[in-house]
């Protein structure tokens, strides 16, 4: 039993350090997602820079932008095409709650990615800065491994 636990832990450690996101941008936040992968912020440092175009080879779906009602079935389908274990980051206010576009007579958008797929980490902002996305990914690592790199920053008083 202990050995299986160890194996699980090693696997989780590997998973947390190799989160391959999908090339999947919906709107404004996608640009910041690209910026996070580009030279200055470089998601690749954390092993999360391998953007795979095919959902079959991804671990992480970054819902970057507003999900319109027309797009929602495609988002669900893409999520279903990803192999388990898989995670979702809702990036930006639109993916969290509809953001600035949600109001009572809004007809076109899905107010929140969590209405259609399970979301692990929410990164607020309109759009979040790349640093925010990186923190979101580190949070996700923390969630996967139950220990994290972020703690040392958070404990600083």
């Amino acid at each position, binding site marked *: 039993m202990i050995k299986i636990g160890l194996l699980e832990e090693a696997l989780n450690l590997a998973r947390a350090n190799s989160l391959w996101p*999908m*090339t*999947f*941008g*919906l*709107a*404004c936040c*996608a*640009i*910041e997602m*690209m*910026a996070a992968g*580009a*030279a*200055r912020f470089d998601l690749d440092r954390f092993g999360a820079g391998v953007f795979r*175009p095919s*959902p079959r080879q991804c671990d992480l779906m970054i819902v970057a*932008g*507003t999900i*319109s009602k*027309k*797009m929602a079935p*495609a988002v669900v389908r*893409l999520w279903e095409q990803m192999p388990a274990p898989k995670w979702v980051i809702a990036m930006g206010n639109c993916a969290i709650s509809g953001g*600035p*576009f949600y*109001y009572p*007579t*809004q*007809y*076109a*958008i899905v107010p929140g990615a969590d209405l259609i797929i399970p979301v692990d980490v929410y990164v607020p902002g*309109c*759009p979040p*800065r790349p640093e925010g996305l990186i923190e979101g990914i580190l949070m996700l690592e923390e969630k996967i491994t139950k220990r994290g790199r972020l703690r040392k920053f958070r404990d600083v008083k």
Partner: protein
Amino acid sequence: MLEPLEEKTYILNLGPQHPSTHGVLRVVLEMEGEFIVKADPDIGYGHRGHEHMAENRNYLQFLPNMGRVDYLHALAFNHGYCMAVEKLIGLEVPERAEFIRVITAELNRIASHLLWVGAYLLDLGAFTPFLYCFDDRENILDLLDRITGSRLTYCFYRFGGVPQDIDQEFIDGCRAFAKRLRRRWKDYDNLVTKNIIFIERTKGIGVITKEQCRLYGLTGPMARGSGIPYDIRKSEPYSAYPLFDFEIPIGENGDIMDRYLVRMREMEQSLRIIEQALDKLPNGPIMAEKVPKRIKPAAGEVYAAVETARGEFGCYIVSQGDVKPYRIKLRVPSFANLSILPEISRDTLVADFVAILGSIDVVVPEIDR
């Protein structure tokens, strides 16, 4: 297994999630072998109902939306909307504010073009220029971040001026950036413009004639690449643009290469405008004196156009004398620019199709609004 093909053609579905559709565009391709018989773009995957929103908010509340219609050249959209509302309520903008608008909008234009160059090379399979462009772009974002407070979806202009003045550090930063970008041209030339594969992929592909431009209402680099010197900054001068000396680069053949070159040269012209504006920057207020607290224009309508990185953005506002606009129509450039896609992608290969689609420089949420 694939079913045996009884018909000669078959359907290939490109998108809505596909690496080269820049977001959420979907194109249904009818193919014969690797050749495209018919391309049918299916837009609307980024439809957020901006125009419907406009009817439910007052003029000021709708302002932040403009940064989200076209997030790559957000400041031009800010500019167009502010201009339209200012015309509607008859507001004069102080000169210094106009200068600041021009400087920031041109910086934003360079950022947009840089992103296009990077993303376009990514479409063609070259990854490295993408990161080079982003590296340069970050410098602009730093500058704009300083005065606007955000990196991407700016909401910086107000009716009657700008809320924040620029300081010496920003001016120095702009000059340093201009110097840096000019040095980088050589890198781009060597890496991209003179690259034989790039030339082979872009010369003579996706040719648009002048007549086609007119029939489809193309604007911006798409029209200029075909040799039409149509640039709102010159042909319908607005803001402080008449005060500056700059050229409109145009192409000859209307192919992808020309559109690329037009955009590259436009960046140089934008640098020129920025430098002139910094030299001539007048002193004075940055906000009009009498800006009404509650904007309630008389019944009427107005159409104001600005030149964005993708072409003409026209803001058409109809007012019925209410605090809310009766109707706002956003004439977005990419909508018309994309509508020519079925025409020019007929009988091309998939690879060319990707190249043509990329050269249009679409921003899908802008098309869908």
